[in-house]
Structures are given as C-alpha cells and as structure tokens.
C-alpha cells in the first residue's frame, strides 16, 4: 500500500508548474492590456498637452453595438482637445445593447450609448435610459432624424436604408427584370428567389417587416402569406442571408436579398481588384430608413464630459469618418461624403418610415403575428 515518493514529487511539480503557468499568463495579460487598448479602441491622453497633464483625466465609456467600427485613433483629437479619454465597449447587436441599457437604466455600464435606432428608440425612452442633451451642432443635423427625438433625449448620428438588393448578373443572364417594388415580390417569376433575415433576430430583418407594414398597412400579413407561398427563405441573421444564400456574395441560390442600400458600394470598395461597377443593385422603392442615435446615459458620473463626447460624435470630423468605415450616411449635413461612396450609393428620396411611437406600441404584437404567419 506504499506510494512511492517519486510520484509525490511529480504531483507537486505538476501542480506548482500549473500554478506558475497560470500566474504567468495572468501577469502577462495584465501587462498586455494597457498598450493593446491604446492601439485598438482607446485614445490616450496626448502627452504634449500641458493643460491636460495637470488634471486627472476623465475616462468615458462609450457603449456601442458590434457594428461600431470607426477609424483607429479617431478619438485622439477629442482627447487632445478636452483631456477626456474614450474607451469603446461593444456589447452585442443593437437589440442586446438596448436590453442591457434598459435593465441597468439609472445605473449604466457606461457614459454614452451609440447605436439605438428608430425601431428600438421608444423602448429605451420608456425605460428612461437617457439624460437629455441638445447638441451644439443640432442645427446642422438631419432634420428628419432630429424630429424623431424632438426634446433632445437622444441625438441622431447617422442613417441608412434597408432595401432589397439583387444580383445584377443573375437577372441579366436570364433576361428577367429584377423586382422593383415589394408588391412585385409575390409574382411567380420571383418564386424561391428571395432570402431575408428574420425580424425576430435581426435588425435589417425587423426593418424589412416594418417596410411591409409601412407599404401595405393592415394588409401586411396577407402579403407575407403570399410571399411565403412564393418560397421566401427566412434565415437567422443578415450575414447568414447575405453570405450563405445570396448568389452575388456566396455560392447560394437566391439572387434577391434583404440588405442595405450601401451594400453595393461595400461590394466595390472591399473588392480587390475593384470592379468598375457594383455586382449588385438596390430596389429603391423598397427601402426603409433607419436612423441611429447616441445619447448620454442617465446616471453617468461624468455628465458634462459625456455631453462633450456627444458633440464630438456629431462633429464634422467624426461624421466624415462614418461612410467608409460603417457604410452609413452622416447625420451632420456639413460633413463631406467621400466621392467613391457617392458614386456607388443610392439614397432613396422617399423611403418608407413608421412613427417610432407606433413601432413601440405594436412591435411585440407584430412580431408575434409574424411568428404565427411566416415562421410556422
């Protein structure tokens, strides 16, 4: 029954080894955090700014959705000017972000929130998530966006359109006209051609459902019933629809997809080598406009600094960075939009919209109806 000593030593060694390994990893990571934040998301205080050096710098946390991808170092100028350091924290998609903000209203995880859109806005406002602030740039901002939040509870930062996109080559080869309206999608010539993300799990999916409600009013469920009979494919997410099923972006079999009006310029600008024209096009009459907003989170300990950050987010400098990094239109009308973005983008003149108050009141009911009618 004796246990050889050698074995015991081995146990000790292994355990000690594990602990040391763990400690090293932890230590190594601790050291790593500082510079990496500087590289990726944090703009650190400029060292040559003497005015800043005397104050203890305020660090603001900017909560944003996963699609918030501004140029690196974009906040350096803001930090140099104000001494305020910005830490970007991404917290899932817009729905997740708003849900988290709602449960922690008054005791927020950050100071400023970027990315609540007009389909989610009322949910956040009802839960009293924001501390109102009217930006100094308000007069320069997209009037339609400002009108959605008239008392300055949030500030419009950008907008974009969710539209039908189609594969130009696919339709040209078969000499079929691409669909131009929502109504035409129920035609037999588009049988089994459309893929759309689900409104239950995807923000463009929700926008597309709202587009159908804006277009058809109370008849929208009948339209979806017909669309279902005509073989619409509903998938989980936008990326699944676009990158797994859309003929122009995958080896999928569906040449019509619900995507953004800015997807065609993205197809061009991301491609290497660049094509002379986009392989995809947008059906302008099917577009639903999404406005995105930023706001000061109620309960922040740095309300004054947070307001300055709101101003920076709608300043020309920041707004001009948006088109080519996030493929949205700036809210500040004085911002210059890059030519290549203008060349390939379509900005529908009369997009479909719905009053956020109506969306707020009926969204849950509409989603339940959608589940019953389309996802059965």
């Amino acid at each position, binding site marked *: 029954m004796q246990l050889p000593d050698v074995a015991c030593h081995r146990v000790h060694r292994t355990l000690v080894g594990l602990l040391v390994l763990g400690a090293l990893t932890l230590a190594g*990571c601790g050291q790593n955090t500082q510079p990496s934040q500087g590289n990726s*998301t944090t703009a650190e205080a400029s060292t040559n700014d003497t005015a800043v050096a005397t104050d203890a710098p305020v660090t603001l946390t900017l909560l944003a959705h996963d699609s918030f991808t501004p140029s690196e170092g974009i906040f350096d100028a803001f930090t140099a000017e104000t001494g305020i350091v910005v830490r970007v924290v991404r917290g899932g998609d817009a*729905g*997740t972000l708003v849900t988290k903000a709602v449960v922690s209203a008054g005791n927020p995880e950050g100071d400023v929130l970027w990315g609540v859109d007009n389909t989610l806005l009322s949910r956040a406002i009802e839960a009293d998530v924001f501390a109102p602030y009217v930006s100094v740039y308000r007069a320069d901002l997209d009037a339609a966006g400002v009108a959605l939040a008239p008392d300055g509870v949030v500030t419009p930062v950008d907008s974009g359109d969710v539209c039908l996109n189609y594969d130009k080559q696919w339709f040209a080869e078969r000499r079929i006209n691409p669909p131009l309206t929502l109504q035409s999608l129920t035609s037999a010539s588009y049988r089994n051609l459309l893929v759309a993300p689900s409104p239950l799990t995807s923000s463009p999916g929700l926008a597309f459902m709202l587009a159908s409600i804006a277009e058809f009013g109370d008849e929208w469920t009948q339209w979806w019933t017909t669309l279902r009979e005509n073989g619409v494919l509903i998938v989980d997410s936008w990326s699944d629809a676009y990158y797994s099923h859309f003929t122009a972006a995958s080896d999928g079999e569906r040449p019509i997809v619900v995507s953004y009006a800015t997807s065609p310029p993205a197809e061009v600008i991301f491609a290497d080598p660049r094509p002379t024209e986009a392989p995809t096009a947008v059906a302008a009459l099917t577009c639903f406009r999404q406005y995105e907003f930023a706001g000061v989170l109620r309960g922040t300990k740095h309300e004054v600094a947070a307001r300055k950050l709101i101003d920076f987010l709608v300043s020309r400098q920041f707004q001009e960075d948006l088109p080519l990094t996030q493929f949205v239109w700036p809210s500040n009308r004085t911002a210059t939009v890059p030519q290549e973005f203008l060349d390939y983008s379509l900005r529908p003149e009369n997009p479909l919209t719905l009053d956020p108050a109506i969306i707020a009141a009926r969204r*849950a009911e509409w989603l339940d109806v959608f589940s019953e009618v389309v996802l059965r």
Partner: protein
Amino acid sequence: MSDAPPRAGRPLHTDLPPRASRPLRTSRPILTGLPALIWLAIFLLVPVAVLVAGHVDASDVSRVLTRQSTWRIAWFSLWQAVVSVIATFALALPLTWFVGRHNFRGRRVVRAIASVGFLLPSVVVAAGFIALLPNRLHVSLATMIAAHAYFNIAVVLRVVAPRLESFDTRLVAAARTLGAGPLRTFATVSWPAMRSAVVSAAAVVFIYCFTSYAVVRTLGGVTRNTLESDIAVRAYAIGDIGGAVVLSVVQVVVIAIVVLLGRAIARDAASTTRRTTLTLSSVAGMRANMGVVIVVVTLTLVTAPLVALARSSLRVGDAWSLAGWRSLVDNNAELATPESAPPTATSASALIDSLVASGRTAVFAAIVALVLAAGLSRTVVRLGSRGRWLDAVSMVPLVVSPVTLGLGLIVTFDSGWYDWRGAWWFVAVVHSVIGLPLAVRVLVPAWRNIAPGLHDAAAVLGAAPRRRFVDIDLRLLRPALIAAAGLVAAVSLGEFGAASMLSRSGAETMPVTIARLLGRTGDLVRTQAFVLATVLVAACITALLLVESGARNHTQPRDNTHA
C-alpha cells in the same frame, strides 16, 4: 456496500476493508463543499433572484404559461434533445470504447482531436457545417441534430472513457470463467460498472442539447425554436424581459424533471464502482482493424468541418489569399491597397487581444472551478446518499439560461465596490460557475474510486491528514483533476452566451470576436473571422494535447492494488 446487491466482481476486492471503517475520517464533510456553494449563491442564485424580483410580475407568469407556443416550443426542445443524445452516443460510443479499453500509439492525439468540437463556439461549428455541406442541407433538422452530436462527442468520451479505463477486465474474465455468456456478463458485470458514467454523460449531453441556442438558430432554421432561443428572442428582440425569465424557469423545471428521472435510473450503480486495476489491452489482429476503422471514421467526421474552416481562412471572396493570415501578424497588412480599402478590417492587435483574453479567462476559470469542484465533489461523496441533493445543486449552472444569468449579473453587480461589470475577470468568474458542474461530474466518480481503506491504513501507519491528502487523494485524483481542468477551460474557450453579455473590449473572448466579425460586411473581415476560428481550433488541440500528456502516467498500465 450493504445497499447494493452482490456483484460478480466483489471477491476481487476483499483485500480492501469495507466502508464501515469510515469514522476514522473527518466528521464534517460539508466544510470542503461550502466555498463552491457560496460561490454559486453569489454568482448564480442572487443574480437570478434579483432579476426575478425586479422584472417579473404575476401577469408575466400567466401570460407565458397560457401561451400555446410556450408548450409547443418546450415539446420541441425536449424531443430534439432526446434524439440528439441518441445521435451523440451512436457517434461517440465506438470511439469511446476503443479509446477507453485499448492502448495504442497516438491514443492521446486521437482523444484530443475527437474532443475539439466541444471547445469550439457554436457559431464557428455552425459556420464549419455550412462551409462543408451542400446548400440544401444547410438548414434542416438533421443538420441541427448532427451538429449537436458533433459538439458532445467529447462529453461522452471524457466522462465514459475514464470509467472504461479503470474497469477491471478480470471481472469479465471471472464471470466468463464462471459460465456467464457475453450478454449476461455485460448485463451483470460491465454495464453496472459503467452505468452511472453513461447516465451522467447522457444527462450533460441532454442539457446541452435542450438549451442549445446558436446551433438551433443557424442550422435548425428560424421556424425551429428551443426554449433557450425563444428566451433570447423575448429578451433582445421583443424586450419582454419578464417573459424571458419565466421561460427560463420553465426550462429549469423541465430539465430538472428529466435529470431526476435519469438519476433514478443511475441510483444503485454509483455505489458499486470502485477503484480498480488498470489493464488496457494492446491492440492486435481483428481488434486492430476494427479500431482503425472506428478511429478513421470518427476523426474524419470530426475534422471535416475544421478543415472547411481552415479552407475558408485562406479564401477572400472567390479567390485564394493569405490576406487574412497576414492581417493577424501585421497591423497594416489589411490595407494592402492603400487608397482603396477602408480600415474596417480588425487590426492584428485586436485579434491577438481576444486570443490572450480567451486564454487568460480559460486558465482563471479552470483554476477556480477546479478548486471549488474538488471540495464540493469530496463533500458529495463523503455524504453518501445524503449528498445526492448537493450533486443535484451542482448541476444547476448547466440549466440556467446564459441570457438570464447574464442579465441577472448586469443588474446585480451594478454599483459601488461591487460594480464588476467591466472587470476582465468577471467573465472568468461566470465561466467558473458554468464549468463547475462538469468538473464535479468528473471528480465525483474519482473521489468515489479512492478506496476508503487507503486513508485508514495510512492513518494507522501514522500519516498526518495533510500527508494523506497529498499522497493518496491528490495522487489518485490527478488524472481526473487534469481532465476536469481541461473541460472547464474548454467550456470557457467556447462559451458565448454569457460572454457576449459581459465581454469588454480589451477583454473580449474569441467566440465573441468571431461572432462579431462574421456579422459584418466585407470578405476580408469574414476571412479574419475564419482565421481566428482556425487559430482557436489549433489552440484548443494544443491545450488538449498538453492535458493528455499531463495525464500520461495514468494511461500507462500499472497495478496499484498490488503495490
């Protein structure tokens, strides 16, 4: 042993004293289990309770319970989970048997590779399946079940194979010598020894499949909902937090019923297991051929989606390209065509950050969970039949919806000195809670296998408690400790639900980064996601090989009882 019927193998153990000699050992077995219980209370019970208190009222309960879709969804969750368990065992048992009973070159590598699916985030596995399968199979019930089976091979392998390894083949030989046929030998000797491990693995697999979320959403299609995916939809898309929480309670209740049924089946089996001699057969003849077939088939199935991932990491759009890999090592490589490409591709430092964050989180979670689980499982074993409730409590983290847990943590640890929402280690703490049940599952049989007589004999020979702990418990537990640490690290590396609620930039774990990249525009960004996924696969296989080599001594035949 008085509660168990006599087994064919009993005579071989007569050299060990019966359990009646227990009084020599510590009188307060609950003490070692307390830290784990306190940990669970702080990071699981309290957050869920706070969420329920703040966001649920009676109308939510009646609204959810009277809605027809609730029960339709619950029924679907249930039957697809049962089918998935069957599929998992069908896929995993041949390999588990071969690996558990035989010694052959490359055994550890086989075990490591076969386990890798379990470590991968479900978004990545789903992406691998989509890359692999023809279009019309992308979204189907069969694909969803196959993915569930794929994930859980490791659970069966890790929980059942160790039991097979420690199973004394002389028992079988004895039974056969005494005239029992193969079937009777299996029914009276082999199966009773393995039953608790099999039921234990089945319970874990069942729970994972029942609460499946990402796989159901991407491969099952939008018309198929489990309770877990409906919880996420309620919480995020509809903003119905009360409804989501009520659903997660329904989920806990359904799972509890099924698991308790399973435990009733496993009841008397557990008490029959003993530490036994390790005798792995070497492989020859017919067995070798069969083994080669089993290993090759299983590993091909396991690696196919991984190869598809690696292939995707080498393609940008329609062309082969190293751009994704270049962007991992060179911060500016993604801007190869300066004036053309916008800087939306993720920088190398951000990718490396998430690698480091994942590794750090996994190590921390594994260490914490290991210490807590070792104590708790000791208590469970020492309490004997009175420990059953504790065993059940330790399973609770598996059945609490990550969405609910994440929301609960956010509303609970939200102010003053306990505002930990932004702390890097908070995700690790949550992972230690989520991984605890698996560690307990592995360690309980291991504690049980330590013959009680060893402690008594050592005590009689003058060994102090500490010496007995180091020389007996630690030594005999080592393989199980290593396996448990590996499992917890695996869970942490692949965990998405809670991490996506709590991850922070600079401390964002890889699954979260991969999911974020997969959701964005641009071929290169997607390629980067696949690069990261490939790195994750490689890291996981490496980690598993390390774990395997740490357990090396265990796999070499030795004979403790005769020492």
